[in-house]
């Protein structure tokens, strides 16, 4: 079997690829927002909440992140079938819970790094606990954790490919569709790999736009979750 490269079917299917890309971006963006919200709440509770809140937060993160994302996708898709949620919402839910647990861990560590003294000083100046978190602790923590967040979010974009198994028509799903019609296996997957590469790189650059996050010390903490 000689493999002859033929990129014309890929170009011919550019409409489908663009649709898939738009869906991947929409899916990732929605999951990014929800996982950040989950991460801030759960991570905040894990770092600064009561004993019960900390236990709950720990149980949440350990459970959510130790279940494979693929299982998350199937569970929310099949278990919530009676709600007749569209597959897209199920994918957002699964992706947000899974990534949210990772974000929570990062947020918890970030708040821990800001230090108790800061919080106590803020409380001493008469700020409420919420104000102290909002104005003193979170902004500093955000700067510290920005590189880890960048890494998590690029992870999230790649992970969104698993939504294809529940028929969300994102990039990987469309790649399968194009592959099935044209049989240009290699060309299709190389093309979408490169698209993911560009997306992921762009996304991680965006997160690093957070003021003050682009210094060397922070970059040194860059960790993959």
């Amino acid at each position, binding site marked *: *079997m000689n*493999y002859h490269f033929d990129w014309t079917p890929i170009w011919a299917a550019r409409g489908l690829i663009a649709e898939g890309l738009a869906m991947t971006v929409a899916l990732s963006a929605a999951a990014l927002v929800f996982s950040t919200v989950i991460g801030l709440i759960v991570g905040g509770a894990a770092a600064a909440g009561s004993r019960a809140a900390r236990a709950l937060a720990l149980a949440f993160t*350990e*459970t959510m992140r*130790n*279940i*494979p*994302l*693929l*299982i998350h996708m*199937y*569970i929310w898709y*099949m*278990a919530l*079938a009676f709600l007749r949620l569209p597959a897209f919402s199920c994918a957002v839910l699964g992706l947000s819970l899974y990534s949210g647990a990772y974000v929570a861990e990062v947020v918890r560590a970030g708040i821990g790094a800001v230090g108790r003294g800061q919080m106590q000083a803020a409380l001493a100046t008469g700020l409420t606990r919420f104000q102290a978190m909002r104005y003193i602790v979170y902004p500093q923590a955000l700067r510290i954790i920005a590189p880890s967040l960048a890494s998590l979010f*690029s992870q999230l974009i*790649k*992970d*969104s*490919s*698993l939504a*294809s*198994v529940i028929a969300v028509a994102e990039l*990987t799903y469309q*790649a399968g569709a194009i*592959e099935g019609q044209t049989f240009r*296996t*290699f060309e299709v*997957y*190389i093309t*979408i*790999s490169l698209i*993911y*590469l*560009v997306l*992921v*790189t762009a996304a991680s650059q965006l997160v690093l736009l957070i003021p003050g996050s682009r210094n060397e010390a922070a970059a040194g903490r860059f*960790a*993959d*979750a």
Partner: protein
Amino acid sequence: MPDVILKNLPFLLNGLWLTIDLSMWSIVLGTLLGLVAGTVRFVRVPVLDTVALVYIEFIRGTPLLVVLFITYFAFPALFGYHTTAYRAAISGFVLFIGAYLAEDFRSGLRAVRPGLIQAGLATGLTRWQVLRHIILPQAVRRVLPSLFNQYVRLIKFTSVASVIGVTELTGAGLLVNARDFHPVTILATIAIVYLVLCIALSMAGRALYAHFAVRT
């Protein structure tokens, strides 16, 4: 235990065994690949350094599912060789985890201060002794937590092999579900098994880390 699980227990256990088998091979081979690629990047071996960089950046920008499609469909078509879903899954996992581990190893090696090595040599230790007692413990200690993070991640990721037709735990569960139709029971059971596997491996990692921490 629910009926549907009991009835299909041997089949599901087979799947679990395959999950463990896939994970073990991928962890061992992936760690080797990561160590080599990370060292090449650290030492800056000419040419190989660029190859390693392209490999690492490419994999880190590509979803695992796509990597598996490439190792199962694209590479055999391109190079004209025969593979199985099992072997394609392992090669995909090794390529995938190797790229992340390479970055971890590189940062671990970077963290060992040159001053320590010189000090070791100055006190009359041989090169081997410096490597054994100074560089390795430092690098390993530094890298261990991220290594185990990646291993845990890999165990979860082996579920993706079901998409290319490997009947590991997830694949077995989905096949059983297709016939007996108890999605919630089956998926919840599988989820708990992964949860136990992953938490056990994390704990092993922490114990090992503590062990190394005491010795240095």
